[in-house]
């Protein structure tokens, strides 16, 4: 009798070990399948235009990831994308679809540019953190307001955040062309150029600015917060089923406002680095669409902050190759937007397969019968 028990025990534990893996496999396989589908559909689109898809994808690889130079270009674009994706992914863990990160980026940039003009003579050690903090604060307030509107006034967060992004861009245009305009910026209205001491430089050994390291740390920090702290666990309960969270007495409103604000702070930081490391002043270039690409990244990464890192690098590489592809293949500049659109439709469509690819149930089929 006891022999039988000893034989079955290892088999059971192997299965028990496989079950959690199987539960997560879907989270990797579905977005991957969506990505491939998006690429394939776009290839078809290229064929219809009379272009060679193989040439296209080869060029994207070369210009995005082929050489050290292309990696530098890709990594530089990755920094704002990582932070913009966090602005979607962090609220998403509470079940919110926030798509207005662009607004927080833009306002963060204006805040950094404006503060930079005021704090020009201050020591960098004080002025730079102040600028970063200001950018994060305005971003947090902006997206936190979206969460507050939802909790207290029942306003849909997706629409509110999108509309607030338009308001933010209009506000930036007003400030940059009016009160904050540097009289010397003639062609392109901008805030006063930052003092050299207040610029964020490149990391030693790379020609990529420090914003990338901060963005990586932000992703890791967000993952730790969500997966390893009790605060993150509360947020996951509320995201998994808000009624269950309410019955458990969890402070859902505080969590929603806090997590949306945190996401907005990340996007605000992206604006800070765009101004202080890339452009040197705040101007209309801030509204470059990073906020929107961030939505795609977060959805592809299934709102897992760690998965955002590779996905953001991929999308950054695709964006970095845009110029080369346009020149070599004579494609219009909207090409990359079309590709992103194809991928986004595929990832949204793949959501309907969620739960159908249930390996856990398949593994436990023997026990249920």
């Amino acid at each position, binding site marked *: 009798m006891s022999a039988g028990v000893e034989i079955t025990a290892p088999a059971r534990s192997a299965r028990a070990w496989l079950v959690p893996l199987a*539960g997560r496999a879907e989270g990797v396989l579905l977005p991957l399948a969506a990505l491939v589908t998006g690429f394939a559909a776009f290839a078809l689109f290229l064929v219809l235009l009379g272009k060679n898809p193989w040439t296209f994808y080869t060029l994207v690889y070369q210009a995005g990831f082929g050489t050290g130079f292309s990696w530098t270009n890709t990594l530089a674009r990755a920094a704002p994308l990582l932070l913009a994706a966090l602005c979607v992914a962090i609220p998403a863990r509470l079940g919110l679809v926030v798509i207005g990160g662009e607004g927080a980026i833009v306002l963060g940039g204006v805040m950094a540019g404006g503060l930079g003009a005021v704090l020009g003579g201050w020591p960098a050690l004080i002025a730079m953190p102040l600028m970063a903090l200001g950018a994060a604060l305005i971003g947090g307030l902006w997206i936190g307001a979206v969460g507050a509107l939802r909790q207290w006034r029942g306003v849909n967060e997706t629409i509110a955040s999108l509309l607030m992004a338009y308001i933010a861009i209009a506000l930036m245009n007003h400030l940059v062309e009016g009160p904050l305009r540097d009289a010397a910026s003639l062609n392109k209205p901008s805030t006063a150029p930052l003092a050299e001491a207040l610029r964020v430089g490149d990391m030693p050994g790379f020609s990529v600015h420090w914003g990338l390291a901060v963005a990586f740390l932000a992703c890791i920090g967000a993952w730790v917060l969500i997966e390893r*702290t*009790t605060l993150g666990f509360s947020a996951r*309960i509320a995201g998994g089923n808000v*009624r269950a969270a309410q019955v*458990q007495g969890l402070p859902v409103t505080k969590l929603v406002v806090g997590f949306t604000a945190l996401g907005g702070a990340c996007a605000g930081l992206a604006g800070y680095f765009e101004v202080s490391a890339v452009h040197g002043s705040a101007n209309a270039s801030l509204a470059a669409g990073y906020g929107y690409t961030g939505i795609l990244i977060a959805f592809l990464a299934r709102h897992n902050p760690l998965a955002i890192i590779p996905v953001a690098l991929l999308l950054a590489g695709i964006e970095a190759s845009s110029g080369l592809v346009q020149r070599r293949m004579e494609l219009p500049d909207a090409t990359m937007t079309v590709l992103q659109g194809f991928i986004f439709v595929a990832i949204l469509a793949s959501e309907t397969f969620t739960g159908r690819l249930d390996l856990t149930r398949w593994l436990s089929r023997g*026990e249920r019968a």
Partner: protein
Amino acid sequence: MNAPALPEAASRVRRGAVGIETVGMTMRFGSFTALDAVSIKVRPGSFHALLGENGAGKSTLVKCIMGFYHATSGDLLIDGFDGHVRDPRDAHAKGLGMVYQHFTLVPALTAAENLVISRADVPAVVDWAEELTALRAFMDAMPFRVPLTEPVHRMAAGEKQKLEILKQLYLGRRFLILDEPTSVLTPDEADEVLGHVKALCASGALSVLMITHKFREVTAFADEVTVLRRGRHVGSGLVADLSHADMAAMMMGDARPAAPAARAETSGAPVLELVGIRARDRSGLKEIAIDGLSVRAGEIVGIAGISGNGQMELMEILTGQRATSAGTMRVHGAPYRATRGEERRLKVRYLPEEPLHNACAPRMSVAENIGFRSFEAAGAGTRFWLAPGEMRRRAERLVADYKVKTTSVEAPIAALSGGNVQRAVLSRELDGEVDLLIISNPCFGLDFIAVAEIRSRIMAARNAGAAVLLMSEDLDEILELADRVLVMSEGRIVYECAAAEADIPTLGRHMGGHA
């Protein structure tokens, strides 16, 4: 073989009950066999009850008969002839109809309008005067009637159910499947409706196959009974020959439910007190008004009522999900707003209805779901870092204690069956000291074994000194568990009595708002 389908108008004139028979009907979904060679025979004009626990295959069988599913193998005979049913429309043409558990009437329309629009051959322009004359003639030929020009939303549940049955007769159906037809009715209404159905069968106008789990209704109204268990036909016979114990034994097989827990003598101070509570209901139009409600330690207070009379709103008030416009809620004398701190300090636990929907995050694991009450507790204080190892060990202990069947505590809780989800949630909510337990429909849709086990856990919590507030639409459950019975109707508590003195007809009248 295929007779031309009769036009609806012609079929309305057709008379005489239809008998049906399934021969070795088998239905497989992948590797799962939901129905295993089930043969049943419903003679023309008989009232046949179909008994079985949840998941026994009752719904699968009737869906095969109605053409929603195509059986993997086996045949359906209608009046002794091959009656292959392609789809529900085909079933209707052959005179088979079904009355669902929940109403399928349009509330804003009158009975007459509902009847006319349910026809397949509604003309583009309806001559209402003519239709009403025809309908009056139809009603006069029926053994029972409903007001034709009354909007459905003003009808009582029993009237609606009668209208559902009349609708089937109006559409020319001569074989009816009733899917738990009395679950939304008071006992009086149920008896009236089923009495009419029985009379229709006796007159030879109709044959009925009724899905139910209420033995009382089977003995009182049915002629024959068939029992299914795990997809198999395990017994059938004349109702007159079978006792409740026989039927229960067939339904459960070898498994034995836990014996009901003994009711210990307890007496305690009030734990939960509601005074003058006012709130809006779901529609925002009606008021929920609880003037006074108190639950003592060591007491189960049952709130009976028909679904939709404010029980859900009361649960939401108690869980802090619904704002109140007036009144006070106190636990152990302290003001209570159902924050997490208060729930922990005052030892308040909840078991909402449909736990997967209301008390779990379906895609999180069993271990995480079991951890919802305790994840940030570290002794008396709170912790910042999550302790997944501790969470898993606690879950494994509770899963073993409460016999939750799951492949692993890491499996998503949505993969568990309803009974096991309820056990998992119960294990979470009853772990540790409990002073107040608030429960809503804890056994809805669960099988015998799970029901008995969950009820005995609730009784054990009471015996250990917890104050229990039990809201349930199942009067039997309330009468089994409660010390004191309250009846809720139209958002108010309209009746109170000690469980020992409870009289079912009286409770029923108050539930229906007729007293």
